[in-house]
């Protein structure tokens, strides 16, 4: 799947789970930029992404991303 397409789908998952219609993500977005994206919500987002793409992240991967770009790269590598 194209990186752009992955980003688009990840964006849709964030919008749904954070219940934030106007949210637009890009490669440099971090947790600090997004309201309500705390460590617990993070795991909720991760599980939703896993389910959506039919993949599993390792425990280390989940803590390793510094921004959305790295998350998208990780999905693309699966």
């Amino acid at each position: 799947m194209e990186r752009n397409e992955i980003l688009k789908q990840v964006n849709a998952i964030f919008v749904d789970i954070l219940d934030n219609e106007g949210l637009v993500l890009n490669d440099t977005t971090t947790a600090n930029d997004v309201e309500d994206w705390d460590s617990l919500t993070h795991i909720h987002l991760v599980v939703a992404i896993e389910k959506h793409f039919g993949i599993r992240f390792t425990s280390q991967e989940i803590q390793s991303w510094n921004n959305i770009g790295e998350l998208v790269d990780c999905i693309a590598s699966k």
Partner: protein
Amino acid sequence: MKTFSQLKKNLKQDFKGLKKIKVAVLGDTATQFLVQSLRATGYDFGCDLSIWEADFNQIERQIFDTQSELYEFQPEVVVIFQSTHKLLGIYNKSKMENHAVLAQQRLMEIEEMCNALNSNLNTKIIYYNYPEINDSVFGNFANKIQSSFLFQLRKLNFELMQFATRQANFYLCDISTIQNYLGKASTFQTSVYINTEMVLSIDTLPVVAKYTMDIIATIQGQFKKCVILDLDNTTWGGIIGDDGLENIQIGSLGIGKAFTEFQYWIKKLKNRGIIIAVCSKNTESVACEPFDKHPDMVLRMDDIAVFIANWENKADNIRQIQSILNIGFDSMVFLDDNPFERNMVRENIPDITVPELPTDPADYLEYLYTLNLFETVSFSNEDLERTKLYQVQAQRTVLQQKFTNEEDFLKSLNMLSLVESFNKFNIPRVAQLSQRSNQFNLRTVRYTEGDIELISNSDNFYTFAFTLEDKFGDNGLICVIILKEENKDALFIDTWFMSCRVLKRGMEHFVLNTISDFAKKKGFHKLIGEYLPTAKNEMVMNHYLNLGFEQEDKNWILNTDTYENKKCYINKK
């Protein structure tokens, strides 16, 4: 069932007007998502849970410190979630010689916690049991050795059940069962555990919240009392009208086995007090035939409280069943294999529960097991007799139609009532009726067995339990009054509820005559009544007005000195 994401959207709904319940949640792992799930699930149950969540791993501090926030909050329900993972951690760290007493130690701790809670709060305790972890240190041999973790874990779950049988206000929430049917691979997700200290996977949260809410709702008097069965392809395989008695599928062969097992399940429900009704599109005589003649039928006519088979639409028939049984639609479950009938009933009777039965009858039971439809917090001898009581009620309805004059009808019943204060024989039934009565209930204050015992031992309260029997049979204990001494002049009617089985029999008059008489003899001059409206007790809105009480602010007053006994056809036994 809703996913966690879907559930979370409930949190933005308007909770105004829903029943408020104060719940405390204490866990030894991260419980934030569980708390969100509980509140959101509560919304779907019509409850506004106000939840106080203990800080992480504060169970003992909160419970044993009587000055803690827990006691300041005064919860009606306390949920305690001690995880298997943390228990395993304790096992890992403890000395070898202590391994064999792990379960015993944990049980003692739980007992001490319950004692502390019970002496400082009037609360119900919901305790999560332990989903299994097999650490595989001993292999299968773990089953043969006391000190293995698996041995201790299973012992603990079993001993918890034993403990629950002795502890009236202690309820186990069986999350071990949830792991059994969903599988550990889906109830526990390692990455979630490692990153958040949560032992429940995101997908499991709604299920655990639902199981917890099932208990809370039942404590509040909201639970299922009746199951209504379709016949063709639900109770047996095939269509009796087309296939005939010999060819319907039931018994020990092929798909017949699924229907037989389904019937055994229904029979067990009946034996534990669930009312069974039939609603079938069939000619009545044809529909009855298997119940009377088929050798493999498990269910028989005397298992069925109300039997309706005709060609009218099912929503109307279910309304008729409801009017005979006199219970709320929200306490009924309708089982039908036909999606059209299911939708029709759902649309016309929104409150009834209509499970989406799987297309393959072989899957019915496994599916129904997972729904946990029939939660209860009590079980008494009365439950065994319920079907008979409702069958007799149907006979009375027939007799009443023969009398044009209601007085003549009531006289012909030869009614007798036994009036007693609470005692060790009637307390379980009094408590049960306190949970079950919704419609004829003036204040809807729910009392458990423990509460009732306290009241019956108190000098401030006077208690009355009424039975009613007539020529058709004994209805058992059907009405309860608790009077509270307000001052030396007046008695407050703290509790007045009655089973709807005995409506329109003059029982209200008999009860009022009895308590007015009692008040006079004890030197009181006034009875004070109060009506607290709920979604279900509109029936008794004008109860005190109709009985001649006079309104004074929110209260209703009866002067017992000038009260004249009301006419009624019930005699004291």
